[in-house]
């Protein structure tokens, strides 16, 4: 354990503080809506890339900063931005899932083509994993891509394609090998969203916010070299990308920010003349969650270190999504309880900074969506027990028929 700041780290910290002091006012609001980044966000992203505060370890030839991995640097950057309430850059699925997946498994040409514009925000991605019939059972994807000449011709339907209505590209899981067994017939394709035959329909969720879509693909043609790895390698890519998704969903910085937000709210909210922070039955809950959030934060630093060392994270990596999404939900639940009756007015379409009620209610529901999405908690527990603890897989069973 070496968390003492070397001169290098002290300098980085000072540098970032100076940067925030000088440029922070140009940052877009952090935690704003999930829309296509506007010009301010793109400019800010450009600035962060220029300074190396984003994509710090991505090779320079792909538009990154090319730095050696350093968990303390990562932590310093995240801490300083978080403390100042400044946007840390575009944390979209392109940057959090597609870029690391391509760097891991994509061809050099694919990295050269797609990483840089994704970093800059020029190219926005959506993920085409889930289908109506295969939520938890992702390997059951039925969207078909048939080789015709030099193209794949794709037909099928995707669900939960968040951002598909403004994305440029889709990272698409589909079945290219019709005859192969379930897990062997899959491939990932990189599909431009302006290709003919793609229709995006909004999918209304319990939050009422237009974040998700259903995407229908009808005779969509993409060149065959738009495949990641080889034909039938899709399950390998899926495993890698799901790992990145788990990391994204378990992100502890978000939890830290929430914790701070709740703390402030507890100081400001008054019930019968007493600040909620001074009511021990609430305060004790806040402290419980603080311990869980800190555990998540340090756990994440440990994972980054394992990653930097090139060690397989094993169990610590497998639990991150389950732990993080569960914790998120506990945090928003406390926030709602603090708000009480004043937390009920709900304006999901035009809520702003002064409407914590709507913001927290959205989180509270969206958090359930995240518990469900990307592999439900039940799937996560299967994974932890089977891959992490070596317990037997669910035995093959006689299929009980669906009730009519």
């Amino acid at each position: 354990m070496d968390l003492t700041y070397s001169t290098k780290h002290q300098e980085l910290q000072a540098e970032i503080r100076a940067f925030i002091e000088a440029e922070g006012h140009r940052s877009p609001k952090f935690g704003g809506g999930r829309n296509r980044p506007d010009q301010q966000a793109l400019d800010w992203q450009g600035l962060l890339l220029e300074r190396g505060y984003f994509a710090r370890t991505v090779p320079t030839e792909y538009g990154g900063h090319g730095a050696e991995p350093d968990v303390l640097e990562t932590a310093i950057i995240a801490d300083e931005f978080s403390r100042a309430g400044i946007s840390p850059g575009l944390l979209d699925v392109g940057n959090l899932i597609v870029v690391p997946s391509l760097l891991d498994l994509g061809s050099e040409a694919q990295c050269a083509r797609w990483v840089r514009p994704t970093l800059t925000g020029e190219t926005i991605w959506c993920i085409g994993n889930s289908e109506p019939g295969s939520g938890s059972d992702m390997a059951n994807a039925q969207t078909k891509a048939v080789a015709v000449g030099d193209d794949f011709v794709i037909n099928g339907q995707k669900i939960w394609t968040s951002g598909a209505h403004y994305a440029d590209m889709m990272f698409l899981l589909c079945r290219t090998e019709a005859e192969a067994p379930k897990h062997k017939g899959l491939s990932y394709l990189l599909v431009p969203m302006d290709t003919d035959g793609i229709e995006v329909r909004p999918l209304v969720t319990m939050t009422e916010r237009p974040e998700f879509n259903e995407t229908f693909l009808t005779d969509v043609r993409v060149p065959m070299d738009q495949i990641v790895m080889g034909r039938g390698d899709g399950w390998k890519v899926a495993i890698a990308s799901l790992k990145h998704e788990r990391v994204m969903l378990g992100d502890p910085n978000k939890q830290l920010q929430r914790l701070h937000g709740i703390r402030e709210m507890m100081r400001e909210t008054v019930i019968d003349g007493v600040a909620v922070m001074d009511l021990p039955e609430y305060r004790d809950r806040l402290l419980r969650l603080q311990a869980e959030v800190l555990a998540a934060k340090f756990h994440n630093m440990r994972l980054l270190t394992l990653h930097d060392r090139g060690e397989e994270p094993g169990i610590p990596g497998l639990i991150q999504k389950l732990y993080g999404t569960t914790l998120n939900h506990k945090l928003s639940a406390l926030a709602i309880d603090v708000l009480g009756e004043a937390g009920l007015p709900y304006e999901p379409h035009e809520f702003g900074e002064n409407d914590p009620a709507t913001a927290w209610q959205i989180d509270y529901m969206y958090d359930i969506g995240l518990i469900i999405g990307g592999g439900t908690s039940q799937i996560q527990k299967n994974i932890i027990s089977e891959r992490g603890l070596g317990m037997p897989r669910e035995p093959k069973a006689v299929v009980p028929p669906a009730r009519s």
Partner: protein
Amino acid sequence: MEFGLSEDQRLIEQSLRGHLADAVDLDLIRRLAADKGGFDADLWAGLCELGLPGLLVAEAHGGTGLGMLEAAVAAEALGYSAAPTPFVGACVMAPLAVSLAGGEEQRRHWLPAIAAGEVRLAVGAGALAGATGTAELSLSGAHLSGRLTGLLDGGGASHALVYLADGRAAIVALDADGVALSARPSLDRTRPLADLDLDDAEAVLLDGADDAPAVARRVLDAGRLMLAADTLGAGQCMIDQAVDYAGQRVQFERVIASYQAVKHMCAEMVANLEPCRSLVWYAAHVQDLDDEAERRVLACLAKAHLAEVGREVARTATEVHGGMGFTDLMGLHFWFKRISYDRQVLGGPERCRQDAARAQGWLAA
């Protein structure tokens, strides 16, 4: 001698549930949710025919003179079908307030109109319930000024019953000068919360209570208990939907109802919710008795406990539905949000438990 619903109570339950099964479907809920007004004239008319607003009104005043257990059975049924209609405030708290705190003339004036469903009262008790909103009313002569947020049953209301911090209750007509009621869309689109602004508005102070604060607490207890019963019904419906959906949804070549994890989620929901039914029944039973402490303890504990169990059930049932629970497609979220609403109005669980502690003398003076 028995612990359970009587034959008459079962009949009331069945007729109301039967009516609601016909009158309320997902289309109606969606329509009223989009409208965000919280009131449908046809649905209200049907419920009036069943006598819902007069349930607690004495027969002498045109009601059926039934008790809180019947009201709780009705609240459970309304929660089960997520019925978008005024009830807790308009059909329980308001008639109870007038019956217990109104003078004889006031009772004769208001109760028949309430029982007939012609006068519908929004109810604002934030000053008493430890609410986090605004409750700043001042009385000058028979005129009220100030602001009160979070009124229940503002949708379609003709009047408002408001509580002052000292426990006195007053009625204002919403069409009177200086009265402005604005509905705010709440998380539960079918039940808005209203804000009331009063500017020297003419008010009728209920003047028949010997001990106004005690009556106010009793009315608040009744409201809390109704919210508990509503959550009971809504939670039960979510469980039923989850079990049903699990029996149809196939993943990994099996219906998910055959997975032990899903089965146990359902079993836990049932195990936690089922005893709540008896708690609500008993709490309702004692509301009609003379023991103030017992009334308060049971109503507050029922409200708090159903809030906790309801929250778990709402989350778990949604999880059982997977992505489908998170979408709008099946409308499951209407029940989810109903349970959130029930938890948050008239005092959250911590506050209710504190009230229960105080009523038992468990709080340092």
